[in-house]
């Protein structure tokens, strides 16, 4: 069974909502659309207060090469352009829309018919993807069109579709694969055409046998698409780990993943690409897993972007009394939030409600140098050392030990028997070191 070679852990899967159908979440009364829902520059708002918008109307335009368009997920009136306190507790610029009815832009094809033929050429496909504001919705929210346009000296050889979903609890990609397999296949073909490759691999962990079987069956009708079952190991959904697992090539430190000849896209992104290119539908809704052990009605909800967390939690049966922590995303990489009125964004893959018993971190004790974190780190780093030097402020040592290679997967903290908050320190140090490196590069250029 294929998997990546270095490190990794296998947390309890807890896929409570596996096999649940996708249910449509109720429309929000008010949608709050953040201007920064992607990695890169925040989008530039192009609507004014009082403007009437339909579902799919452009609200904000990409502001730079690494940026993405944002479209209205609802129809109604722009009530204000102000800031909103997001999941982190910080205020971020956002567009508020008071929802009136559900009127869609005429150009969007809302029918369920499968459109297989795509007559656009690569450039037109990429333009369309950029125009529709597609970003990597596996979680990193990197603008998709940028990934499809690698630097001229790097030529993509294969497309890898990330359907791993290695995060415990999350089942949104799984549900999407079971219900939209045909659309995903067409989406994959479109992506292959966009980067001029003839081979695509879809990597799926074997804890989703139904999805593997279904996609295998569908792949017979499509040329060049191969389903690769993978051993269950976290963080296999990491771009570098997935490339290692499937085509056995390693991304060099500091290099772009495409330097190995592989372009990686999430399976939900492939579906979004299908909808954008074939149906003219911008990225305005996504599947969000709302889950938790004491939640009454957990599920996979098709939710409009900009709906509040509380709306989705309400749809899943309301906040249980024994809630200890609300996590945006999965338990490994997700971030806890204290604000359930925060809006969801393109990158909100799940809302995890942990009970009070599960939620708390045990007290940290001193490091016993057992090196479990070293064994667990999928990037081959030494987390115990990095966390220590960051705590002491020795950023030059942290840099010489490649702190910038950290993918923040959390395997180190997960494996630490002393419960040390290793990733907290490393993430902080990574930010500092990257800032120092950027400043140095800027200085060198002068």
């Amino acid at each position, binding site marked *: 069974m294929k998997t990546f070679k270095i490190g990794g852990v296998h947390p309890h899967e807890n896929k409570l909502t596996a096999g649940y159908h996708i249910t449509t979440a109720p429309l929000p009364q008010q949608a709050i659309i953040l201007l920064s829902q992607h990695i890169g520059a925040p989008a530039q708002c192009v609507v004014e207060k009082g403007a009437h918008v339909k579902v799919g109307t452009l609200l904000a335009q990409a502001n730079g090469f690494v940026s993405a368009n944002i479209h209205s997920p609802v129809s109604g009136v722009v009530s204000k352009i102000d800031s909103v*306190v997001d999941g*982190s*507790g*910080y*205020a971020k610029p956002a567009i508020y829309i008071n929802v009136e009815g559900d009127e869609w832009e005429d150009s969007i094809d809302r029918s369920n018919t499968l459109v297989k033929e795509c007559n656009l050429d690569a450039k037109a496909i990429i333009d369309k993807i950029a125009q529709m504001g597609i970003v990597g919705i596996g979680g990193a929210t990197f603008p998709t069109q940028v990934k499809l346009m690698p630097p001229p000296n790097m030529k993509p050889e294969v497309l890898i579709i990330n359907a791993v979903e290695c995060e415990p609890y999350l089942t949104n990609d799984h549900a999407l694969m079971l219900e939209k397999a045909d659309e995903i296949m067409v989406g994959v073909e479109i992506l292959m055409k966009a980067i001029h490759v003839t081979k695509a691999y879809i990597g799926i962990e074997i804890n989703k046998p139904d999805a593997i079987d279904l996609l295998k069956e569908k792949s017979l009708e499509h040329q060049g698409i191969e389903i690769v079952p993978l051993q269950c190991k976290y963080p296999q959904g990491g771009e570098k780990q997935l490339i290692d697992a499937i085509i056995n090539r390693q991304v060099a430190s500091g290099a772009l993943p495409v330097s190995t000849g592989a372009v990686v896209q999430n399976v939900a992104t492939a579906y979004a690409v299908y909808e954008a290119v074939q149906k003219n539908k911008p990225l305005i809704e996504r599947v969000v897993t709302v889950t938790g052990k004491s939640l009454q009605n957990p599920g996979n909800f098709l939710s409009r972007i900009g709906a509040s967390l509380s709306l989705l939690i309400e749809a899943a049966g309301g906040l249980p009394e024994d809630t200890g922590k609300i996590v945006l995303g999965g338990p490994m990489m997700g*971030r*806890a*939030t*204290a604000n359930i009125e925060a809006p969801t964004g393109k990158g909100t893959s799940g809302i995890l409600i942990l009970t009070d018993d599960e939620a*708390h*971190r045990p007290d940290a004790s001193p490091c016993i140098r057992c090196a479990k974190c070293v064994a667990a780190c999928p990037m081959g780093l030494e987390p115990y050392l990095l966390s220590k030097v960051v*705590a002491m402020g020795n950023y030059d040592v942290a840099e010489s030990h490649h702190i910038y290679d950290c993918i923040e997967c959390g395997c180190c903290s997960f494996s630490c028997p002393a419960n040390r*908050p290793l990733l*907290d*320190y490393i*993430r*902080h140090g990574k*930010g500092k070191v990257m800032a120092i490196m950027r400043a140095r590069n800027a200085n060198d250029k002068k």
Partner: protein
Amino acid sequence: MNIITLSIITLAVIGAIAALILYAIAQRFKVEEDPRIDQVESLLPGANCGGCGKAGCRNFAESCIKATSLEGMLCPVGGNAVMKQIAGILGMEAVEAAPRVAVVRCNGSCDNRPRTNIYEGASSCAIAHTLYAGNTGCAYGCLGCGDCVSVCSLGAITIDPKTQLPVVDIDKCGGCGACARACPRNIIEVRKKGVKGRGVYVACMNKEKGGVARKACNTACIGCSKCAKECSFDAITISNNLSYIDSDKCKMCRKCVDVCPTGAILAVNFPPKKVTTPAATEPATTPTPEESNK
């Protein structure tokens, strides 16, 4: 010959030759150093805090020797007394500088600023700040993990367990500013130290609109600009819904303290006010939690 004696003699000879070589090299590459550098350094506190803007105490001593005048040179920890002695050694005129002290511009104690969640991450303000807005509704206020405490080489800052806020011991604080640089939210400011440590400052950093700020904290500055209108010395400016008092212009009349509706402006180390009316006996104008919750 006895092997032990032979070893001792061989080692002694090697030692002697090495010593001669070292002596010769030391003479050849001798660096003439101004003996006054050592003298000046011995006067300095030796905390290497960097508050003077130099890399450490020795570096400051070297800069003093090179400087043509002591203007602008100040060891904030040693203060004017040390600078006077240094001036004596160097035969220069001492330039008096106003003593400075660190102030904590947040009054969001547990009573004033209700906690909305529990932070269990690594105990560092810098880390908590990058992760999220903090365990209260205020994204600008003190996180209480004590980064300022751990960088203070003079032991002048402690976290009050009751309020969860840092407290500066004005007698120990040298005003070096290490804490101000460590604070990820720029809450600590090094300000002019008044007579007997007196000071008037806005104990709030919240730049949100008044309503939002007040919802998070009872003593938030709401940017109403009453204080700025009251001030006769043009010391108060309002920007981003936040008031700021310039300590160089402030004459410490404390009129602004009396007009502030939320009690965001603090007057510290003043003797208790004379009782003129019963209302004036209230310390500052902090509303009780019951009042502000309405």
